[in-house]
């Protein structure tokens, strides 16, 4: 049969989503359901001196108002040990948007009215809205029990590589602000909790239902069979729906108290201050190298803005950044360390790429800085340092990081060919010699990131049971197939991609339309971990493959018995099993499936049924890579950057579905371009958010964005039997530095050496103005 691996199958999930029949959390309506609304802190750091809830309680339709004092013993939300975050501020608010009280009413309008009527009195505390303020001498520690705002400090290498850097013939340093971003899935956070005598059911906007079930059980003292957590259709997540939010605990507790289902759906304005932000690093990078551009040592010092409450995932981001800071290059020595710092801002956690885009950005910016220092072409500096394909798998100095197979030099060559790089350099020179011509710039980004998050010994540090993933295939007596997977999608197309893997592993005996994929429900799916770290295809994919292979072996045995042949002589094809070389000796799949449920028709001792579960534990992470290039021209009058071309060559290993792979790359690239040019979460000095609506926070729309040229180099990974590496985060990891390198390249003749994102017209225009003033 023709394999479906590599086929642009149209998505199974689309028809309901195209006709308004998706089911997202806010679409769920249960009998007697009531609505919760938050009263949120309006100041960034203050002691709460009084909360007056009386007027709200008197409002018709209001079932109750609760502050922290009204909910003694309420569990803390998911926290770094020793820094437990209460669901409602107890005596202090620490960022604008922190929940102070909750209201429950019969509808969302009344709940909002009641929340408005709650008045909170504050006694101001010093506000530390920036890392600088938080690190100032004498700064008030934000998290109780901490001696300062440095809540974490960790070396990730034996030393800081200063000796090697001092010994290097040449050095360059770079201070990078990788700005704070808002993930902004178009569906905000929401949940519905229904606590009955049988236990608790929570429908929520989640990436990982099983871990949330496990946590709710610990928090409320329930056993795991009593709690059902469901992620229905989820409207985008990008990492932010892997965090645990206080609303999950509060709706559960209030449902228990009220004996009614309780729904909460945040508004966008709430989401912009409540949903975790991403990035937020300040990096001090020093590279030591020789006169030929060969890297000798790299020093990476990261300050991670944690926001007001360190998120367990967010505080680990700089670890991933450090691990990946060497990029695609052989660097003899990396000295890496980080500090996590609390500020009076929204907590920071995972956002598409989670720590790896910050790494790819720093090393790829540094490669261009080195090229500039040496007067070399940036492409050549990269070539001097690439890890070569024959050196892979390649062990970095970080014990958990061993890159799997790829070919970085070839990825770069493919990119430069597609760009017609020499012609662009010529055009750049031509324009520089032409008065009034807009300067042209070319930026490249040859990147590697981590995918396929696992294995268990590594991944359990992030609070998960393990780093494995699971799949269960159940063939029904009519030959159709129900496939359950432990990952939980939010737009990636798991139903289609996993069905393709199953069809392939089953030898094409079952068509796509006879497969239903079940996910995101702890009551319906075997144990699972979840969707994050580009792990679904690389970790759950092999589980689907293995379970399907076991099923095919059983079908073959049953068919062999029915045909009185040896299982070795049976071959599977579309809808039937036949004796090799004798097509007349065949049985339909439906007959085989039915027979498998009739013990009297099976060989003695053969197990009844057609159900196989496989838990797949990866041996290593995967390392998706690629080479992206961006061509820009800059309007020096306005500072506006125009992207003329964006070219992506990706190595995600084997491509399962090219259509969906293209969607993943393009979606990620656009988020990366948006980081480079538009987006930044900003606060004023009082810690008031300046970007708390979509009017102020610049999520790009269609006219803002270019078309992209995408392609793949498929280098199989030896890390899993499918040869897949993952693709969800590659675009966002690759794009920011491709764009920024291009803009800096365009302006380098003006003496501009670096610019921090986002490269807004104002920022670029000012840089051009100040360079002209200096040269005047």
């Amino acid at each position: 049969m023709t394999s479906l691996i590599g086929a642009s199958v149209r998505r199974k999930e689309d028809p309901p989503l195209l006709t308004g029949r998706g089911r997202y959390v806010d679409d769920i309506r249960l009998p007697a359901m009531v609505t919760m609304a938050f009263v949120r802190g309006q100041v960034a750091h203050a002691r709460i001196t009084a909360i007056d809830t009386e007027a709200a309680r008197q409002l018709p339709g209001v079932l109750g108002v609760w502050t922290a004092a009204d909910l003694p013993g309420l569990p803390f939300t998911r926290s770094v040990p020793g820094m437990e975050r209460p669901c409602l501020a107890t005596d202090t608010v620490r960022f604008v948007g922190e929940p102070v009280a909750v209201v429950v009413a019969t509808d969302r309008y009344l709940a909002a009215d009641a929340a408005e009527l709650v008045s909170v009195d504050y006694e101001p505390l010093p506000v530390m809205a920036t890392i600088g303020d938080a690190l100032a001498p004498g700064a008030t520690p934000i998290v109780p029990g901490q001696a300062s705002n440095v809540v974490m400090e960790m070396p990730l290498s034996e030393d800081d590589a200063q000796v090697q850097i001092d010994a290097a013939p040449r050095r360059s340093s770079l201070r990078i602000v990788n700005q704070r971003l808002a993930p902004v899935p178009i569906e905000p956070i929401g949940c519905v909790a229904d606590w009955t005598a049988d236990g608790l059911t929570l429908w929520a906007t989640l990436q990982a239902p099983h871990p949330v079930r496990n946590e709710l059980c610990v928090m409320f003292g329930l056993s795991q069979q009593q709690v059902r957590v469901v992620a229905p259709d989820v409207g985008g997540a990008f990492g932010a729906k892997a965090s645990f939010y206080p609303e999950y605990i509060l709706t559960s507790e209030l449902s228990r108290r009220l004996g009614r289902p309780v729904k909460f759906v945040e508004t966008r304005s709430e989401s912009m201050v409540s949903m975790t932000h991403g990035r937020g690093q300040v990096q001090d990078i020093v590279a030591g190298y020789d006169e030929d551009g060969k890297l000798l040592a790299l020093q990476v010092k990261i300050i991670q803005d944690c926001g007001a409450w360190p998120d367990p995932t967010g505080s680990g981001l700089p670890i991933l950044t450090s691990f990946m800071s060497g990029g695609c290059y052989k660097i003899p020595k990396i000295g890496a360390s980080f500090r996590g710092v609390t500020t009076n801002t929204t907590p920071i956690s995972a956002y598409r790429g989670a720590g790896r885009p910050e790494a790819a950005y720093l090393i790829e910016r540094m490669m261009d800085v080195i090229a500039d220092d040496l007067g070399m072409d940036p492409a050549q500096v990269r070539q001097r340092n690439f890890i070569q394909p024959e050196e892979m798998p390649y062990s970095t100095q970080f014990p958990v990081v061993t890159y799997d197979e790829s070919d970085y030099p070839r990825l770069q060559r493919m990119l430069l060919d597609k760009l017609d790089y020499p012609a662009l350099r010529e055009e750049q020179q031509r324009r520089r010699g032409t008065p009034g011509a807009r300067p042209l710039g070319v930026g490249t980004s040859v990147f590697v990131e981590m995918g396929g998050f696992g294995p268990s010994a590594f991944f359990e540090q992030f609070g998960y049971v393990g780093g494995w993933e699971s799949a269960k295939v159940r063939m029904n007596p009519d030959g159709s197939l129900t496939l359950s997977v432990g990952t939980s999608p939010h737009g990636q197309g798991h139903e289609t991609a996993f069905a393709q893997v199953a069809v392939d592993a089953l030898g094409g005996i079952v068509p796509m339309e006879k497969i239903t994929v079940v996910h995101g429900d702890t009551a319906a799916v075997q144990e699972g971990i979840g969707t994050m770290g580009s792990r679904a295809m690389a970790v759950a994919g092999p589980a689907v493959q293995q379970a399907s292979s076991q099923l095919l072996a059983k079908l073959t045995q049953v068919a062999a018995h029915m045909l009185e042949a040896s299982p070795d002589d049976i071959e599977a094809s579309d809808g039937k099993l036949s004796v090799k070389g004798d097509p007349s000796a065949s049985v339909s799949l439906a007959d085989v499936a039915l027979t498998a449920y009739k013990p009297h028709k099976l060989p003695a001792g053969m197990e009844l049924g057609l159900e196989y579960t496989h838990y797949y534990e990866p041996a290593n992470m995967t390392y998706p890579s690629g080479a992206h290039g961006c061509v820009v021209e800059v309007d020096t009058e306005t500072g506006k950057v125009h992207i003329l071309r964006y070219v992506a060559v990706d190595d995600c290993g084997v491509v399962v579905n090219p259509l969906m792979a293209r969607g993943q790359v393009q979606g990620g690239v656009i988020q990366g371009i948006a980081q480079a040019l538009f987006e930044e979460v900003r606060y004023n000095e009082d810690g008031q958010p300046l970007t708390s609506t979509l009017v102020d926070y610049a999520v790009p729309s269609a006219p803002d964005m270019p078309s992209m040229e995408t392609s793949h180099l498929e280098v199989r990974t030896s890390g899993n039997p499918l040869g897949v590496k993952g693709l969800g985060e590659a675009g966002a990891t690759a794009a920011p530095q491709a764009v920024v390198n291009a803009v800096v390249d365009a302006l380098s003749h003006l003496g501009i050496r670096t610019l921090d994102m986002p490269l807004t017209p104002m920022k670029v225009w000012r840089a051009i103005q100040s360079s002209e003033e200096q040269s005047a």
Partner: protein
Amino acid sequence: MKHDIGLTVNGVATSATVDSRTLLVHLLREQLGLTGTHVGCDSSNCGACTVLLDGEAVKSCTVLAAAADGASLVTVEGLGSEGDLSPVQEGFRQCHGLQCGYCTPGMLIAATSLLLDNPDPAEEEIRSGLEGNLCRCTGYQMIVESVRWAAEHGGAGAVAAAERDGARA
């Protein structure tokens, strides 16, 4: 204050009692059970709530339900069915114009309205025509291709065309 209103939704005559402040999107979602129309922001930026009102695309989070008295509405549920997708819906399916699906209903309606205005739009016209609808998943390129596919395979579709004709008659 309560208002008794009458309107046509996806071809069905409907009546409802709404508060003065009830938004059209909440009438659709919570009183009429048409949950295909989504809410993604509170500042009229995202367009997830876009519906056709008398043949024109509007953001239903920015229209009071009472103001829709007497209007004819088409929501995503009215464009086509799973077995009979409109050209725009089919275009999104063929060209992978959706991922998570949350912006999709509004995007489909906006694209339908765009094709009613301009049956043969160029890429730039599609991009500017969809400026009021945010998608965070696709990067827009495959949405543009989806709309082009629809333009070449029947355009806005019969339901939307009839709606626009009816409103202008």
